[in-house]
């Protein structure tokens, strides 16, 4: 096809692209992915047995706040690296700051605990499955985010893949919090962080292949 014909074909039936279309597209993908993850969680694990009481506890909301805040920070970075030539720059600050807060909380918790109770605080009762479940529930979110990138233009594919993986991991962790009955900040700091980071690493690994355009 000649370039003239191509241009004519492309600009025919032009649909308006309102300001904020990119962010809306990413949020839509995250919402759809989170819904799929939540449905899968209900079918596979079900909510924690004491969910009714847990909703009143601070530990429940601390977990949700951690992964939720990291999800927002990673999404902010993601919406930056979705633009050509961009690395995200200062948008990454939140991604580093949020875990630091939880590390500090976990550290204080361990210091104020008796020495022989510390190991139990860190390991909880589900450390062997926690990071992998977070990774699993991040998968539908990751798929949706990759779909959203079909209209976006990242040029740093590994970085964009990492941001996509991390955002998906954080959303997956938030969903998993509904089923997880761990309460210690130290557990959160180690195993939730690990799960979300594995999701980010997988994203960075797949990014150059999946996000190429």
């Amino acid at each position, binding site marked *: 096809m000649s370039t003239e014909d191509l*241009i004519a074909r492309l*600009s025919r039936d032009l649909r308006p692209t309102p300001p904020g279309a990119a962010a809306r597209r990413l949020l839509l993908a995250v919402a759809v992915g989170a819904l799929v993850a939540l449905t899968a969680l209900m079918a596979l694990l079900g909510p924690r047995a004491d969910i009714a009481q847990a909703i009143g506890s601070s530990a429940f909301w601390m977990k949700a706040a951690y992964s939720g805040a990291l999800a927002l920070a990673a999404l902010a970075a993601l919406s930056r690296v979705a633009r050509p030539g961009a690395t995200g720059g200062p948008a990454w600050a939140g991604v580093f700051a949020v875990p630091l807060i939880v590390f500090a909380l976990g550290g204080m918790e361990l210091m104020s605990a008796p020495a022989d109770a510390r190991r139990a605080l860190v390991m909880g009762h589900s450390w062997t499955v926690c990071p992998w479940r977070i990774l699993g529930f991040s998968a539908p979110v990751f798929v949706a985010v990759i779909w959203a990138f079909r209209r976006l233009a990242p040029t740093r594919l590994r970085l964009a893949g990492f941001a996509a993986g991390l955002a998906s991991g954080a959303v997956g962790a938030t969903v998993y919090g509904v089923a997880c009955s761990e309460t210690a900040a130290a557990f959160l700091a180690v195993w939730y962080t690990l799960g979300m980071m594995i999701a980010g690493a997988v994203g960075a690994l797949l990014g150059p292949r999946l996000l190429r355009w």
Partner: protein
Amino acid sequence: MTAVENRLKSLMLRGLDGDAAAQRDLLGELAGLLRRYYARRLGRETSDLEDLVQETLIAVHTRRASFDRAQPFTAWAYAIARYKLIDHYRRRRTRAAVPIEDAGALFAPDDTEAATAGRDLDRLLAELPARQREAIRLTRVEGLSVAEAAARSGQSEASVKVGVHRGLKALMARFGSGEP
């Protein structure tokens, strides 16, 4: 550069708002700029040139949601053009560094053609005797009048006129008749 930026950005914004004519103009103008930008970088692989131009136009069009209205258009378009060039090299398995240039690399006014034409002209004129060469250069290249050219070169006006006439005739005989 700012004039180009302003014109293209206003086309882009109108295109984003759904103005098909603006979008067509934008892509049309970009096609020319891209063809020049890639031609300089691909060298002899001209067979891929138009494919690369088209692929980049498709990316500019389908991924226009990635344009931030608060940012300059030229930087955005240049980043896409550069990405497509790197991707092209990667696919052909050639290792080539694509330096990050100013967006002006894509939007600079085209001086290569003028430079090439100037070089060709010099070579042509070099074949002529000095007086004819000077007469042609002053009147036809620098655009002086016959009187000014005569004053400048120290020839008489008649000599300048004759020099131009004979010189052009000689060039026509040599290059206008199908000889190389």
